[in-house]
C-alpha cells in the first residue's frame, strides 16, 4: 500500500475506507468487552484478527454488522454510520456478508433456496436471475452438484462453503468471517480456506477472525492482535510473525505456533 494512502487511512479521512471505527467501546453488562477500538479498513483490504478467547475479536466484527450494539464511539460502514436507525442497519447488512463458526445455514431450505433467499427478499432480484447467481457461486465453491440437497445432508466443510456462497450471492462489498474453520474437522479446514484464498485473490474486502496463521501469512495485508478488548498490535504479516513488538503478542504466538 502506498505511504500516502496509508497515512490518509490512519487519519480516518480516506474516501476509500470500507469501515471506519473510531474510539469504539462496548460493554456486556458490567464487562467492558471492547475498550476503545480504532480501526480503518480500506476497500480491498484483507485483515486477519487473532487473539486469545474472550479478547473481543468476534464481538468486534459482530459490531460491524450490528449483530452487537456498541455503546460509545462511531462505526461507519461504506459511508453510513451505524445508529439505531433500523433501515440503515438493514442496508448495511445487505452489503456486508457474514460467515459464522457454526455455518448457520437454514436447515428447512435446500442449498439453492438458502442461496437465493437473500437476493429474492432483500435485493428483490427476479427468481431466474437469483438461481443463476446461486449456481454460479456454488460452482465457485465447488459444490454445484449438491444444490437440491438440504444442509443436514452435507459435511461440515461443504456446509461452510455453502455459507460462503450464500453470502457472496448478495454481492457484498465486505465479508466478515467469524472463526470459519473452528468448528470443522481437520481434514475439512483446507477446502474452506482454499475458497477463502480464492476470494481474497479476487480482491474482496475481508475481515477474518481466525487462528489459521498460514492463511494470515498468505493473504492478509494486516494482522491484528487483540487482547482484553484492545487492539494490541497491528502489522503486516511478515512483521507481525517475524518481529512481534509486544510481549503479549509474543506469548500468544509462542502458544499457537508451538
Amino acid at each position, binding site marked *: 500500500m502506498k505511504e500516502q494512502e496509508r497515512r490518509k487511512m490512519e487519519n480516518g479521512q480516506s474516501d476509500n475506507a470500507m469501515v471506519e471505527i473510531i474510539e469504539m467501546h462496548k460493554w456486556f453488562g458490567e464487562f467492558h468487552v471492547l475498550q476503545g477500538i480504532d480501526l480503518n479498513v480500506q476497500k480491498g483490504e484483507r485483515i486477519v484478527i487473532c487473539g486469545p478467547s474472550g479478547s473481543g475479536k468476534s464481538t468486534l466484527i459482530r459490531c460491524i*454488522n450490528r*449483530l452487537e450494539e456498541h455503546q460509545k464511539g462511531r462505526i461507519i460502514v461504506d459511508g453510513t454510520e451505524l445508529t439505531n436507525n*433500523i433501515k440503515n442497519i*438493514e*442496508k*448495511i*447488512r*445487505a452489503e*456486508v*456478508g*457474514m460467515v*459464522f463458526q*457454526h455455518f*448457520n*445455514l*437454514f*436447515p*428447512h431450505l*435446500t442449498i439453492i433456496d438458502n442461496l437465493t*433467499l*437473500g437476493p429474492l*427478499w*432483500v435485493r428483490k432480484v427476479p427468481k431466474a436471475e437469483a438461481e443463476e447467481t446461486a449456481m454460479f457461486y456454488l460452482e465457485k465453491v465447488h459444490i454445484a452438484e449438491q444444490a437440491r*440437497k*438440504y444442509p*443436514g*445432508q452435507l459435511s461440515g466443510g461443504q456446509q461452510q462453503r455453502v455459507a460462503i456462497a*450464500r*453470502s457472496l450471492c*448478495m454481492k457484498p462489498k465486505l465479508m466478515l468471517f467469524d472463526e470459519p474453520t473452528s468448528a470443522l474437522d481437520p481434514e475439512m479446514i483446507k477446502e474452506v480456506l482454499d475458497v477463502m484464498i480464492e476470494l481474497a485473490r479476487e480482491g474482496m474486502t475481508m475481515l477474518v477472525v481466525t487462528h489459521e496463521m498460514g492463511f494470515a501469512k498468505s493473504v492478509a495485508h494486516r494482522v491484528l492482535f487483540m487482547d482484553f478488548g484492545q487492539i494490541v498490535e497491528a502489522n503486516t504479516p511478515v512483521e507481525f510473525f517475524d518481529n512481534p513488538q509486544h510481549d503479549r503478542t509474543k506469548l500468544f504466538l509462542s502458544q499457537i505456533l508451538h
Partner: protein
Amino acid sequence: MKPPVTHVGVIGWVKGNLFNGTLNSILSIATLYLLWKVVPPLIRWAFIDSVWHTTGKACKPAAGACWSVITENVRFIIFGFYPYDSQWRPLVAMLVLFGLLFYSQNRKHWKKHLVYVWIAGLFTMGLLMKGGLFGLSPVESTKWSGLPLTLLLSVFGLTAAYPLGVILALGRRSKMPGVKWLSVTYIEMIRGVPLISLLFMSAIIFPLFLPEGVTINKILRAQIAIILFTAAYIAEVVRGGLQAISLGQYEAAESMGLNFYQTMRLIILPQALKIVIPPTVSILISAFKDTSLVVIIALWDLLKTTQSVLANPEWMGFSPEAYLFVALLYFAGCFSMSGYSRKLERELSAGEQQ
C-alpha cells in the same frame, strides 16, 4: 448353518411373542379369555341381534342394539332445528367445507389462489346456511344446530385461533415492554379460567356492556370465546417452538439484511411451527371436542341434538347406541386431524434429517 425353526411362521411368531416365559404366557391366556368374553357378545349386540329400521316401541323387545334411534332420527341429530325442507343446504355447505379441507391438505396447493378458493367457499357456505339471496329462504342463525354448528365452531375456532396464537407467542417474546406485557397478561388470564366461564361471560355478561339495541349473534359470541381460549394455549406451545430455534438462525437471517417479518416468516416460524406440530394438534383436537361445551349456553350442537332425541320418551334408554354414533363422528374428526398432522410432519422433514 440353519436358521432357528421356531421363529418362522405363525406358530413361531406366537411362541416367540406370546408364550416366551411364564408371565407372558399367563398374560396372553388372560387376554385371550377376556377377548373371547367381550368381542363375540359385542358383535352379537351390534350386528347380529340389532334392529335398524323400526319405531322405538318395536325396538324395546330386541336383544341387540337399536340402531333405529339413529336411522329414524338422523336428520334431527345432524341438522337439528334447521328447517326440514331446506336441510340439503347445510348438507351441501358441509360438503363444500370437506371439499375445501381436502383440497387444502395438499401442500402443493398452498399458494395464493388458495386464499381465493377459501373466500369463495366461505361465501358459498354462508349463503347456503343463511339464505335470503337467489331464492333461498332466509334461515335465522338461532336455528343452526347439530353437526353444521359443531363444524362451524371448530373449523373457524381453530383456523382463527392458530394465527392469533402465533402472534401472541411472538408478542410474548417481543423486546417492546408494552407488547410483551399485554401478551403475557392475556395468555395468563385466559389460561387461568375454564372455557365454560368464558362461554358464560360471552353469553350473559358481555351483552350487558353493549349499548341498547345492539346485539351480537350468540353463535358469534361463543365462537369468539372459543378462539380467544384456544389461542392462549397455542401461544404457549408456539413459544416453546420459538425457544428451540438457535440464535444463529436469527443472526444468519439478520446478517443478510432480512427485516423482522421476513426473518420470522421465512426462517424462524417455518422451523418453530414444524417442531410443535404434535402438541399443537393435541390442542386443536381437544378444542374440537371442547366445542361441545356450548350446550351450557343453550347452543344446540351435535351432542345436544343427540341428547334431545334421547329425551323423547319413544327413544329413551337407547343412549349407548346414540352416544356411540356421536363418538364415531368425533373420532373421525380427531383421527383425521392426527393422521394429517403425522403426514405433514413426515413431508416436512423429508430430506432434512441430520
